[in-house]
């Protein structure tokens, strides 16, 4: 397995292969058929399959989501792409009131095979409304699957699984992960929902990192080895259903859980993971826990404030250090900007 491609290319390949395999699959969303192709993730699909199978939409996130649901009821398998997760807020009426509920409230008479892709923005002054990480909103809602891969292998396999699944799937991506490179088999394959992935092994602390926080947690792990701390780094991959067993098995060994999420803490994915692990290990193993997230403020635009807003390898490593050596222990490695954040000079 020596073929290395980017996360974005892996998404495009999954989509292309599924569209080739099943002509009910189609892609819709703002800009999916333009020259940029959602950072390459939909590039070439309209040319290859025609405008019926990959087309632009009007600026009507709520309406278009309903249109996608209607198409799913009529037997098609839509992939609705939001170039920013912030725009999903407008679509939330249809996602939550209709897609998530229709099978249940109609007593199983219908199914809604809908994939909703969205991208969490970051950096170069994206600011308050082009950077929100809202995956916990959709984890909260019964009737939705929510997945958030961080490695290209999972990007392709999970998107393939999502397209083939007969339920609404919220497929969450992070802009800074799109450029990550990894080994991806050229043939079609699936990655199951509900299975977390170990990114690194160590017995001193468990770090669960979501999306870009998984990438930064691996860098934090490298910092920690220099001070004699070995970390399990786990990417949950699937947020709903969540693989509590894998995370709990690690925490039962390390006794220390740090959850890193590039979103807000209150009612966030980090809160849910800690609560679920706590319930699972209740009476079996007491453990220390902490979550490192963005502060409860609005995402700023100036670069210096942006840098303070986001967890980074230094702050993640420092938090893990405190879990190991106690809250009074202070150590922070030198801060190094993530290459993908450094490389990104906008505009979007």
């Amino acid at each position, binding site marked *: 397995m020596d073929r290395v491609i980017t996360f974005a290319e892996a998404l495009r390949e999954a989509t292309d292969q599924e569209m080739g395999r099943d002509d009910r699959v*189609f892609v819709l969303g703002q800009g999916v058929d333009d020259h940029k192709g959602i950072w390459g993730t939909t590039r070439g699909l309209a040319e290859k399959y025609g405008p*019926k199978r990959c087309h632009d*939409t*009007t600026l*009507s996130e*709520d*309406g*278009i*989501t*309903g*249109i*996608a*649901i*209607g*198409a*799913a*009821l*009529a*037997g*098609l398998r839509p992939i609705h792409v939001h170039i920013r997760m912030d725009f999903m807020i407008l679509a939330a*009426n*249809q996602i939550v*009131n*209709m897609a998530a509920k*229709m*099978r*249940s*409230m*109609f*007593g*199983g*008479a*219908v*199914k809604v*095979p809908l994939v909703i892709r969205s991208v969490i923005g970051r950096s170069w002054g994206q600011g308050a409304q082009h950077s929100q990480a809202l995956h916990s909103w959709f984890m909260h809602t*019964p*009737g939705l*699957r929510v997945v958030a891969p961080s490695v290209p292998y999972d990007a392709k396999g999970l998107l393939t699984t999502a397209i083939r699944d*007969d*339920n609404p799937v919220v497929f969450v991506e992070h802009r800074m992960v799109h450029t990550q490179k990894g080994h991806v088999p050229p043939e079609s394959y699936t990655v199951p929902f509900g299975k977390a992935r170990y990114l690194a092994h160590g017995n001193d602390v468990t770090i669960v990192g979501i999306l870009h926080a998984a990438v930064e947690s691996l860098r934090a792990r490298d910092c920690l080895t220099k001070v004699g701390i070995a970390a399990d780094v786990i990417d949950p991959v699937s947020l709903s259903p969540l693989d509590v067993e894998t995370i709990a098995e690690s925490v039962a060994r390390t006794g220390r859980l740090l959850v890193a999420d590039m979103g807000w803490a209150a009612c966030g994915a980090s809160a849910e993971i800690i609560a679920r692990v706590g319930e699972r290990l209740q009476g079996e193993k007491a453990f220390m826990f902490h979550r490192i997230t963005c502060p409860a403020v609005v995402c700023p635009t100036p670069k210096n404030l942006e840098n303070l807003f986001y967890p980074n390898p230094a702050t993640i490593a420092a938090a893990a250090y405190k879990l190991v050596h106690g809250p009074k222990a202070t150590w922070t490695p030198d801060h190094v900007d993530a290459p993908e954040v450094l490389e990104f000079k906008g505009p979007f």
Partner: protein
Amino acid sequence: MTPTPTQSELAFRNLLRIRRAEEEVARIYPTDKIKSPVHLSIGQESVSQAICDALEPSDIVFGTYRSHAMYLAKGGDLRKMIAELYGKVTGCAKGKAGSMHLIDVAAGVMGTSAVVGTTVPLAVGYQHALEMQEKPEIVACFLGDGAVEEGAFHESLTFAAGRQLPVLFIVENNFYAIHSGLKTRHPWKSIADFAAAYGCRTQRFEDGDYWKLRSAAVEEIHRLRTTRKGPVLFEVCCYRWLEHVGPNEDYGAGYRPRTEAEPWLACDPVTRVGESLAAEVRERVKREVEAEIADAFAFAEASPFPPAEELYTDLFA
């Protein structure tokens, strides 16, 4: 249009079935056997019946929380509807939908919803998919005069008109969004006028004449099916005889005087179509419909509630 005796008998049977089913729901309601909000179609039955009679069985409808008439007119199962209202497992959605979310996939009733305007884009998306698959069916989308205020309606019209989708929108204009009169809400004189500005072919029906609406529907649906070019919006004026939700009249509440209802009561299409039949035909149909209604309610009464396990089923396919 002059209907044949056969057409008149069929129309009366279907109209009467809806009317009597709704009246029985209202009569039973104070016994608390129906533990679901009921938005009754009494007074508005003819709109659904005229449109659905003009559609093919394979055509598709989407509706609102006030969809008992649409469900029955499209061929939805009466026993399953009453059982659903009773919350029984033999209901059209195993008791889990209640009155506001009726479904009957076999009859082409592809969804209703309690959140205003949420089925309008579904209807457009369904038609979009039919055009992509080059299938012949037409989707009819029922909505109320209040729903045209929702953003989703504008979004749906824009998308449908931009692609000339052959979808038929039916606005049942009963002049009130719950208790709030249209004159205090809308700047435009007619909903058909503003839909025309969006690129719809439109017609407005003001006098409650059943056969006029049905003829227009037959002609327009044929045009949609053969040319595949739309959308079309029918604004059909009608009157809700009872309160917004529940089994009672509410003329005493003060927001609508009984005098406003009187002309609509006087021209009731159910009565008019019945009066056009020979007396013995009308009486026979009445007896047969009563028997059907009684059977449906007895079925609902005798059916069990869903077992506890059903709380956890049908979340995911």
